[in-house]
């Protein structure tokens, strides 16, 4: 038996040794596998970096039309704070006619704007001096840092703004270590002391109140593992933490942690890292945070949901103040600072994520335009910097006016609040940059984008293209041509007789061409359109930029054409820019994440109309504003601001449009109902109310009526339509394409009274 038991013992030991050896080999293999995973994850492209989308930067230069109040408003939008000492970038001090600021540095496409203290003088609405505050040198032009307006992250995805440890305020790094892992710089990945301390605390409390995880373990958890609290996971976590520590320095690990940690949730978007956290909660870069703001972010690490400062401000405040007390104990702030800081409000920027995600409709357009050139992964992973055309000041006006005017109209018309919807676009006249875009009255909601996707009948917005088609034929038509206003019936195959009528159901007798447009009279328009032919009118629309599938039928003369507000902005932009078509663009430049130029989106122009006819139609559209359906705009605009436009009303008052332009801006506004029911609004009573207020807010520049060489301005007598001179009492100046104006003199003129023949005036000049 002894032998037996001995041999069994030996056998057992052998098996055990073998098992341990095999286990050891397996374990070693396992460790190697973990090690590889960690190194791959850590050394490789660590994060998918969403593209960052920026608004257009605010320029500052002498002669610019901005006042001190508006500049301060702009600075506040960028998260600059008032500080009389200008102690840090992102600060300003403002007076009535003067603003000093410490502009942030920024890498622009075409050069670097260095951080710089500036002094700006104003005289009313004008910048009169721009100097470097330190050297007192005059500066020609300065750009403020552009506002971060969004990012392009994958669905259900993580969003982050990458930071380097060297850019992080020391208080944040030290404070984070003090609060989350006091022994971080001593331990080797795991801290037995911390685990022991946590276990005691948890036993005392009877439930989990403290975690014993080091920052390294937390990082591993976020990098690789699920949130399940299992024993194997804990073991894995500890092993990987030690492996990580063996490969990388404490600073590398801390930097990775600061970029990885989850700090909040914004709809589908997970806010990761302190870089984005700073923008998300305080709308400014990390290096400008003050102690109480740093404390709030550090406090959020423990639980971004429970301590969400927007949702649970009381939880957040208590947590922040606790963190501030740790800062004090660590000597990061003095006792006096502590006492002051805990009395301060949270100071979290309002709205959906402050600066980011403010302009969902515009960012939607940016994404669509990028999709032509970039793959999805490039946009969500590569950290590209996208510089857009959005002008936050213009956007603010368009948003405010739509949000304010729709309830006003509903009230006047006794509609149920919320009945009306609205959309609008503002573009730059000469090159079609989209400066502002609103897709619905809930301007922060990324839902149905009416400015791009709602295709509604354009109604009388089509008329300028009918009249422009006519004016391209100076041998037949000019602005003074008379057109009958008489009933018309049109029989189309397989369709009921079409008998359009005027909006007021009246007939007004023969109309001057420009007047028929100004008052938006339907029957002369249809008559003219029929003479020109629907195919020619449609061609004009296409030359202006229309790219829909409307058929060349007479109903297009009255706007049986569906288009989005953005398409209308393009079509009217062609008129506004003197006949040069450009497609609406929302992007200027793209940089790599390191600030290297990647792609520029240069302007794209094409002349599709001669300047002469465009000058004439613009003149007629100015009449819309002074004597026609747009004249109520001048309750808002100054009478010396020349603008051109056109109202659009569709059948049964379903859509209320207004589209028009000054010298520099094209604005299109649509008001209607999503269910396409009647609103009872015309273009003038609905959309124009928004349009004219936006044009006032953005200080639209007056159209400069200098005729092109192909146009001559002729004084005519409105009664006879013939040439007038100083003897004619109410002569008016009308532009004609060269040699198409009247040649004979009106009865009121001196020439007509002196001479016999119609050509006498010529003899008067040359004959004697």
């Amino acid at each position, binding site marked *: 038996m002894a032998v037996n038991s001995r041999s069994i013992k030996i056998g057992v030991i052998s098996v055990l040794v073998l098992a341990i050896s095999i286990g050891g080999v397996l374990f070693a293999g396992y460790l190697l596998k973990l090690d590889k995973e960690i190194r791959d994850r850590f050394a490789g492209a660590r994060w998918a970096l969403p593209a960052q989308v920026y608004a257009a930067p605010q*320029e500052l*230069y002498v*002669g610019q039309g901005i006042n001190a109040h508006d500049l301060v408003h702009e600075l506040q939008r960028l998260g600059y704070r008032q500080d009389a000492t200008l102690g840090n970038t992102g600060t300003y001090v403002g007076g009535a006619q003067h603003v000093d600021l410490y502009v942030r540095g920024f890498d622009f*496409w*075409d050069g670097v704007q260095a951080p710089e203290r500036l002094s700006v003088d104003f005289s009313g609405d004008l910048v009169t001096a721009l100097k470097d505050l330190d050297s007192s040198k005059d500066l*020609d*032009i300065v750009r403020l840092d552009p506002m971060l307006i969004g990012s392009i992250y994958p669905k259900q995805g993580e969003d982050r703004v990458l930071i380097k440890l060297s850019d992080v305020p020391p208080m944040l790094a030290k404070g984070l270590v003090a609060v989350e892992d006091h022994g971080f710089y001593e331990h080797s990945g795991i801290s037995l002391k911390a685990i022991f301390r946590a276990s005691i605390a948890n036993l005392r409390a009877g439930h989990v109140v403290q975690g014993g995880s080091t920052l390294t373990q937390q990082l591993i958890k976020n990098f690789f593992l699920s949130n399940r609290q299992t024993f194997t996971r804990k073991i894995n976590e500890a092993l990987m933490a030690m492996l990580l520590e063996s490969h990388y320095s404490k600073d590398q690990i801390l930097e990775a942690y600061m970029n990885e940690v989850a700090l909040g949730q914004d709809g589908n978007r997970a806010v990761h890292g302190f870089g984005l956290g700073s923008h998300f909660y305080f709308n400014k870069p990390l290096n400008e945070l003050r102690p109480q703001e740093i404390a709030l972010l550090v406090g959020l690490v423990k639980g971004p949901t429970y301590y969400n400062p927007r949702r649970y401000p009381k939880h957040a405040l208590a947590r922040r103040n606790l963190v501030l007390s740790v800062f004090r104990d660590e000597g990061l702030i003095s006792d006096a600072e502590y006492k002051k800081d805990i009395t301060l409000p949270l100071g979290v920027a309002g709205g959906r994520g402050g600066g980011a995600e403010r302009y969902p409709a515009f960012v939607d357009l940016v994404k669509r335009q990028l999709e032509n050139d970039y793959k999805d992964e490039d946009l969500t992973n590569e950290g590209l910097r996208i510089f857009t055309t959005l002008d936050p000041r213009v956007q603010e006006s368009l948003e405010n006016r739509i949000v304010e005017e729709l309830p006003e109209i509903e009230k006047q018309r006794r509609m149920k609040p919320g009945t009306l919807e609205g959309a609008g676009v503002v573009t*730059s*006249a*000469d*090159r079609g*940059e989209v400066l502002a875009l609103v897709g619905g009255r809930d301007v922060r909601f990324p839902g149905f984008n009416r400015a791009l996707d709602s295709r509604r009948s354009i109604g009388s917005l089509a008329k300028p293209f009918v009249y422009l088609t006519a004016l391209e*034929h100076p041998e*037949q*038509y000019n602005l003074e*041509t*008379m*057109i009958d*206003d*008489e*009933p*018309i*019936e*049109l*029989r*189309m*195959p397989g369709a009921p007789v079409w008998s359009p009528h005027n909006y007021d159901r*009246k*007939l*007004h*007798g*023969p109309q001057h061409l420009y007047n028929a447009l100004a008052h938006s009279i339907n029957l002369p328009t249809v*008559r003219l359109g*029929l*003479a*020109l032919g629907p195919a020619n009118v449609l061609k004009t629309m296409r*030359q202006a930029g229309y790219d829909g599938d409307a058929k*060349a*039928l*007479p109903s297009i003369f009255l706007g049986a054409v569906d288009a989005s507000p953005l398409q209308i902005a393009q079509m009217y932009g062609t008129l506004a820019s*003197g*006949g*040069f078509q450009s497609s609406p663009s929302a992007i200027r*430049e793209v940089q790599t994440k390191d600030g290297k130029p990647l792609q520029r989106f*240069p*302007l794209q*122009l*094409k*002349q599709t*109309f*001669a300047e002469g006819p465009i000058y004439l139609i613009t003149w007629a559209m100015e009449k819309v504003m002074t004597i026609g359906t747009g004249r109520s705009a001048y309750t808002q605009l100054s009478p010396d601001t020349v603008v051109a436009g056109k109202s659009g009303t569709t059948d049964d008052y379903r859509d209320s449009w207004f589209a028009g332009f000054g*010298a520099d801006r094209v604005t299109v506004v649509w008001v209607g109902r999503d269910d396409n029911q009647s609103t009872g609004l015309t273009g003038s009573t609905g959309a124009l109310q928004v349009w004219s207020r936006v044009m006032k807010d953005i200080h639209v520049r007056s159209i400069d009526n*200098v*005729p*092109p*060489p*192909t146009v001559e301005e002729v004084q005519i007598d409105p*009664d006879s*339509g*013939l040439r007038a001179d100083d003897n004619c009492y109410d002569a008016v100046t009308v532009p004609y394409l060269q040699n198409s104006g009247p040649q004979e003199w009106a009865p009121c003129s001196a020439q007509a009274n002196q001479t016999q023949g119609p050509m006498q005036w010529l003899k008067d000049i040359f004959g004697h």
Partner: protein
Amino acid sequence: MAGSQASAGAPVVRSKLIVILLVSLLAACQTTTGTHKVYPGTTGPEAEPLTPPPPAVEAKPIEPPPAPPKPVYPQSASEISGAAVTSLMKKANEYRAAGQPDQAAGVLERALRIEPRNYFVWSALGQAYLAQKNYAQAESVAQKSTALARGNYYVALENWKTIQAARMARGDAAGAALAGAQVASLQAQISGGTP
């Protein structure tokens, strides 16, 4: 129909020319002359064919200014530009001299956002596009400059040179010759004032 009657009186005092115009208009719209007419059922253009519209790009001969004395046109950008735009144009020139036309174009576009109708900037942008071998845009932008310059032959001359070079580079010899004729005519106009 009071309005109709009031207007109906007007044609009586209208001259023959307007009557002729009206007649020609009505002739052009034969199908619309009668009031309350029921139109035949076609979907195509109803009217007689129109004369083709003038080409979008008017290759009109450059005409001399209508009356002496000749208008005085600015010859350099600084005459019509603010300090900011002047500074940006200088920077653009530096980029072009350094063989970076893309950067130059970017800076000029920035200048255009400040002064969108500054035809000197548009003209320089045309030259920058030419240097980038973006010939279609070089020509369009040069045309835009000429349109905004409203008769300034100094600027028009530079723009036609750009257009001539762009057409040449694209292999459009005939188009380049037309542009060359414009250049010659403008040069004559500037130097001699001969019409």
